[in-house]
């Protein structure tokens, strides 16, 4: 990693000197954030505390560089890595079948974006690892509380398993279902190696499409994004997307989207929904989400509800309810709190609810 950083710094320096000599307008920006939190979890039988990196918006570094290659054509790179230890979506109770328990071990770097882009009046094209065209389409949210809670409910405490009537977490051969497996927001195919094209904005709308590979599977995504200022009615943003992953079991398809409205009074409402046709599981899986909030000055608060159906097993209904609050004392820091409860109903089985409390801070440096 040290060698990579040195190489990157040398490349940036050389590029700046080279372009500087030819009077090319080149700009490079390095930014980042730290997002750490305290988490307490009660699974109905045991309770414990955890120190985590909040996977809603992980600790990370970003490098963006671009230059005007010719009039009307800008080219550049986007490089972003996350550096997480005790990821909030991975830790779970000690002695959980499959682990990892309270610690995930040494922190690791993870590639988020490593892509080249071309941009002009015709839109934007990207090549490399970055977001698929529909990534985030079920997570559009104007509440100001996303760092505490949003549709991606499994990013916090997703690794915890539900205790059964006997008070166990299952066995190594047959562990009980986790939050992550029961109420995923099914946000399409995330980030992978791809080529992507985004149209320019037309009246607040843009269309995006991507083709790529994830593992050994080919992936195609398309999405329509919207965002607009409605004047006295406030702001509105939304997206609908479709993805298809060609797996060995067949086409894994997801369709869905979200819409979020922020009124000028500070009241806001968010709605999301996805339907997945999972050929490996042999059934359809759904996710529904609703959030209501209020935002005023440095404060934002919200309540949310979501449900995953038929995700871990046919007939499953996994509900969650949350209350979140974010305080922004200075422009570069947020302090947040979250209280959330997860339930799993399965025909012929009984599971305890899981309650999660999280207190943390995201600081941009």
């Amino acid at each position, binding site marked *: 990693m040290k060698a990579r950083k040195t190489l990157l710094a040398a490349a*940036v320096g050389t590029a700046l000197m080279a372009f500087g000599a030819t009077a090319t307008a*080149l700009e490079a920006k390095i930014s980042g954030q730290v997002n750490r939190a305290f988490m307490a979890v009660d699974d109905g039988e045991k309770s414990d505390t955890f120190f985590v990196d909040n996977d809603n918006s992980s600790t990370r570094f970003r490098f963006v560089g671009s230059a005007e290659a010719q009039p009307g054509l800008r080219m550049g790179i986007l490089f972003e890595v996350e550096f997480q230890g005790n990821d909030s979506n991975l830790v779970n109770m000690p002695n959980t079948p499959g682990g990892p328990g309270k610690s995930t071990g040494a922190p690791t770097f993870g590639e988020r974006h490593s892509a080249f882009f071309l941009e002009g009046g015709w839109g934007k094209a990207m090549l490399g690892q970055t977001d698929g065209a529909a990534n985030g389409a079920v997570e559009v949210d104007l*509440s100001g509380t996303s*760092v505490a809670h949003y549709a*991606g409910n499994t990013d916090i405490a997703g690794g915890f398993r539900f205790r059964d009537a006997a008070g166990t977490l299952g066995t190594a051969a047959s562990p009980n279902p986790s939050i992550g497996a029961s109420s995923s927001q099914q946000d399409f195919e995330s980030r992978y190696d791809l080529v992507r094209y985004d149209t320019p904005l037309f009246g607040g709308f843009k269309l995006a499409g991507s083709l790529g590979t994830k593992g050994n599977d080919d992936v195609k995504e398309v999405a329509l994004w919207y*965002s607009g200022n409605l004047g006295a009615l406030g702001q509105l943003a939304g997206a*609908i997307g479709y993805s298809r992953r060609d797996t060995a079991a067949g086409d894994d398809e997801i369709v869905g989207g979200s819409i979020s409205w922020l009124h000028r009074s500070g009241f806001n409402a968010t709605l999301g929904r996805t339907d997945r046709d999972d050929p490996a599981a042999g059934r359809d899986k759904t996710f529904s989400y609703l959030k209501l909030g209020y935002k005023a000055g440095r404060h934002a608060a919200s309540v949310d509800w979501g449900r995953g159906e038929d995700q871990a097993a046919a007939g499953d209904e996994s509900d969650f309810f949350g209350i979140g609050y974010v305080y922004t004392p200075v422009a570069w*820091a*947020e302090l947040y709190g979250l209280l959330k409860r997860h339930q799993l109903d399965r025909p012929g089985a009984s599971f305890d609810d899981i309650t999660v409390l999280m207190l943390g801070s995201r600081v941009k*440096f």
Partner: protein
Amino acid sequence: MDLRPALYVALLAATLAGCASQPLEYRSQLEIPEGPGMFSGEDGAFVFRTRAARPAIDE
């Protein structure tokens, strides 16, 4: 696959979008926030520019 839920969302978005007075750039709150940074100041990033890219005030 049942496309109805996505269709309803799209119709609602399109209807409300008809009232839009001006475009707004949506930015996910899950990304590094815009605005100033603790150490990077008002720029919100450590910025390196060639002379040609510097604002006129630097000249």
